[in-house]
């Protein structure tokens, strides 16, 4: 077989007949820049900046710097993550063997051209649709395509669909479809539609933003009308007040912080050789209750070892028979283990060879004089393995697989030996399982293997509930029944891909479920799970269906993914309230200004000072700190418990100061210093609460923020449009600050009581938790 010539390949390249529909892990740089630049909030901020520029007050446009800084950081972080992920994706790519100019060569899948001849061995993925031109006992698993898990024997002229895998044998296949025309491409597209891959954090924050956006326009218009027409302000003053009210309401830093914290998480994971394909994966993992594993390739490392050969018929030369049965082209884990233990021989003349398949459960070799079988006893002789308990009990108890070697003579099949094979358990499997036990994450093993074998492996690892197993055949067909029993078992053995999917679906009813898998039989389950984790050693369709890919094929890295997710969610939860305090008081103050037609108490530059020193600076430090506590539900409730009381307290302060100012006929401009200082202090108090328990780093951060904030107020009063500190201002600041401590706690108590009542109502509980 010669395959295509260089000229033919080149011709196809030039005419676009090349398989360039590669799976994109990341967005292009152009898309990253555009999507980060053209956001609703950037647009809003630019409009506000232009409005401020029309007043001629340059220093009040400083808030644009924050937006600019935010956008640049977001773009840099995402591009950095893109580079790391792209590198990983390339190094992780499987190569395809093709014949060109009569020679075999390995190329990347996207270099395949139409009519290329691929050489496919057992275990290879079919990356493009093709038709077989030559086959030697080639069996193909098309479960990803048809859902049928039985391997199919493919002959010459049979078609191969992309997404399927070669289970045994070898074949030569001619490429018939490329790029988007491939069956797998349409399947991957479909898989990505099934799951909403936006992050939960982003969803919650977007909900808050939607609510804020909804309020901004009417509040802004009313605020301007009240300032310009009823508060006797000039155009410039009215614009500055309105802009201050609006920018105060936008928690733009929170959006940035979430993106940056998630992106930093993705980068950190990529350094540990973990590809986060969908951002929500990192969050879901942080609150996972149930982790489902496929035994092969997760607890065990996928390699096997022959432990013992138990001869039943002492006269037979077992080494000789198995040596002759071994096929050079087959290279599944069992064959590799057998080849390691038995020397391959060619003394017997082979008449026919039927390779091992997962549905048949045995391989058969017909020699000139005799026929031998190698595989599962129940499928070869129809005998029960318990008949041979005296020979095998010790091996079965240790969780070893038992291969039966049988001889067929005159239509009678006779067992001549058993081969005990051990699945090699990963070194860190025990530690990883213990970690999840400590974190109260339930482990479920959903495997195509015999439940007894899985149970024995788990017993070796001192795993709790190793004896709670059930076979796929005993599982109820009815989904409602399945839901009832699914929590009673730890091991689900001999399950079909559809049963795996149903089990995950049933578990999802009451828990957040993650599934780790690598095989074709795991695809449906990976798609169904809240977070699908694929091993890079697995097939590409499984990787495409997953949220997270472990490129090292080592599930020992999972605790660090969970920790990373927890760090992101816990930290964002912590600092989100800092941003929402500003939103809360800006909104209430806008309403107050509209109702009492009083000038807005802040200028944009004053809000920029509070946002950058009391919120932005500390939140960036806190968001990147390690924080591995288990994530609990109720993000919104927890965030607003901090934000609302503090926001209301700012309003109470300002209202009191307006009253004092009015009663004593004082110039309100002189009170702005007290307002800014008190608002800064309330933010610092919240920061102090968030920082608890304090450590040296956090103490330094707190002190630094307080010192810088007051130094700027003292040293640059003209820049921040405030008066200088005097005795009256200091006395008012101190007395109100003391009073605020109790006011905040008072509103926190009220908030707790309201939430307690709302939580009793199911309708509200569902909305808030």
């Amino acid at each position, binding site marked *: 077989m010669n395959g295509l010539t260089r000229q033919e390949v080149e011709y196809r390249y030039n005419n676009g007949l090349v398989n360039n529909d590669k799976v994109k892990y990341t967005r292009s740089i152009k898309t990253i820049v555009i999507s980060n630049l053209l956001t609703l909030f950037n647009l809003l901020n630019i409009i506000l900046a232009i409005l401020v520029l029309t007043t001629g007050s340059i220093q009040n446009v400083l808030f644009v710097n924050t937006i600019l800084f935010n956008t640049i950081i977001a773009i840099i972080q995402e591009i950095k993550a893109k580079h790391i992920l792209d590198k990983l994706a390339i190094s992780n790519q499987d190569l395809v063997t093709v014949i060109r100019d009569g020679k075999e060569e390995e190329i990347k899948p996207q270099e395949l051209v139409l009519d290329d001849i691929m050489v496919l061995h057992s275990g290879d993925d079919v990356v493009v649709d093709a038709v077989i031109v030559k086959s030697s006992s080639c069996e193909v698993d098309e479960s990803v395509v048809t859902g049928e898990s039985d391997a199919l024997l493919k002959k010459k002229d049979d078609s191969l669909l992309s997404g399927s895998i070669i289970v045994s044998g070898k074949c030569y296949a001619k490429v018939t479809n490329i790029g988007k025309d491939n069956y797998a491409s349409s399947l991957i597209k479909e898989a990505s539609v099934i799951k909403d891959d936006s992050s939960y954090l982003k969803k919650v924050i977007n909900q808050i933003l939607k609510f804020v956006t909804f309020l901004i326009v009417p509040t802004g218009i009313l605020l301007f009308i009240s300032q310009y027409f009823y508060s006797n302000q000039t155009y410039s003053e009215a614009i500055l007040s309105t802009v201050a009210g609006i920018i105060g309401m936008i928690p733009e830093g929170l959006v940035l912080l979430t993106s940056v914290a998630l992106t930093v998480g993705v980068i950190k994971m990529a350094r540990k050789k973990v590809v986060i394909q969908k951002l929500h994966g990192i969050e879901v993992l942080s609150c996972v209750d149930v982790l489902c594993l496929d035994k092969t390739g997760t607890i065990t490392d996928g390699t096997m070892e022959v432990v013992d050969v138990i001869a039943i018929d002492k006269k037979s030369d077992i080494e000789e028979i198995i040596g002759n049965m071994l096929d050079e082209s087959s290279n599944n884990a069992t064959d590799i283990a057998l080849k390691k233990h038995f020397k391959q021989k060619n003394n017997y003349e082979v008449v026919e060879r039927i390779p091992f398949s997962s549905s048949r459960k045995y391989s058969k070799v017909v020699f000139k004089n005799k026929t031998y079988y190698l595989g599962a006893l129940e499928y070869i002789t129809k005998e029960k393995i318990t008949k041979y308990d005296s020979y095998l009990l010790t091996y079965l108890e240790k969780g070893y697989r038992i291969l039966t070697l049988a001889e067929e003579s005159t239509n009678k099949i006779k067992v001549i030996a058993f081969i005990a094979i051990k699945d090699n358990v990963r070194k860190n499997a025990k530690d990883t399982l213990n970690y999840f036990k400590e974190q109260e994450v339930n482990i479920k093993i959903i495997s195509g293997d015999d439940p007894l074998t899985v149970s024995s492996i788990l017993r070796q690892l001192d795993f709790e509930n190793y004896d709670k197993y059930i076979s796929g055949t005993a599982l109820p067909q009815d989904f409602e029944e399945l839901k009832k029993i699914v929590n009673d078992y730890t091991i689900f053995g001999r399950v079909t891909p559809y049963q795996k999917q149903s089990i995950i679906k049933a578990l999802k009813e009451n828990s957040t479920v993650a599934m780790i898998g690598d095989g074709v039989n795991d695809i449906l389950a990976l798609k169904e799970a809240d977070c699908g984790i694929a091993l890079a050693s697995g097939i590409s369709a499984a990787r495409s269906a997953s949220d997270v890919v472990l490129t090292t094929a080592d599930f020992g890295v999972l605790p660090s993914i969970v920790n990373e997710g927890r760090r992101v969610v816990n930290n964002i939860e912590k600092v989100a309230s800092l941003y929402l305090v500003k939103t809360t008081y800006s909104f209430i103050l806008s309403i107050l200004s509209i109702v009492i037609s009083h000038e807005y108490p802040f200028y944009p530059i004053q809000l920029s000072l509070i946002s950058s020193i009391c919120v932005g600076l500390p939140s960036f430090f806190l968001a990147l700190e390690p924080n591995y506590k288990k994530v609990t539900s109720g993000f919104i409730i927890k965030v607003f418990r901090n934000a609302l009381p503090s926001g209301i307290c700012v309003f109470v302060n300002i209202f009191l100061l307006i009253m004092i100012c*009015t009663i004593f006929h004082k110039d309100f401009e002189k009170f702005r210093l007290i307002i800014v200082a008190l608002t800064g202090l309330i933010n610092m108090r919240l920061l102090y609460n968030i920082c608890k328990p304090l450590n040296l780093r956090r103490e330094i951060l707190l002190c630094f923020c307080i010192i810088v904030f007051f130094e700027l107020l003292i040293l640059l009063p003209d820049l921040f449009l405030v008066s200088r500190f005097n005795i009256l201002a200091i006395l008012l600041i101190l007395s109100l600050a003391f009073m605020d401590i*109790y006011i905040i706690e008072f509103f926190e108590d009220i908030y707790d009581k309201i939430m307690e009542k709302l939580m009793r109502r199911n309708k509200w509980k569902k909305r808030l938790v």
Partner: protein
Amino acid sequence: MEKKTSISRIIGIIGIFALLIVILIMVIVYKVKYEDMMITFFKFLAYN
């Protein structure tokens, strides 16, 4: 929690008294009459 609440309550009450004292000082320093204060206050409320 109880202890923490009572401490913050004491601090809060100190703050309120301190604020009242500051207002009193302002009344003395700025020589504002009680009646004028009340009139301005109610005017403010009535106007809004």
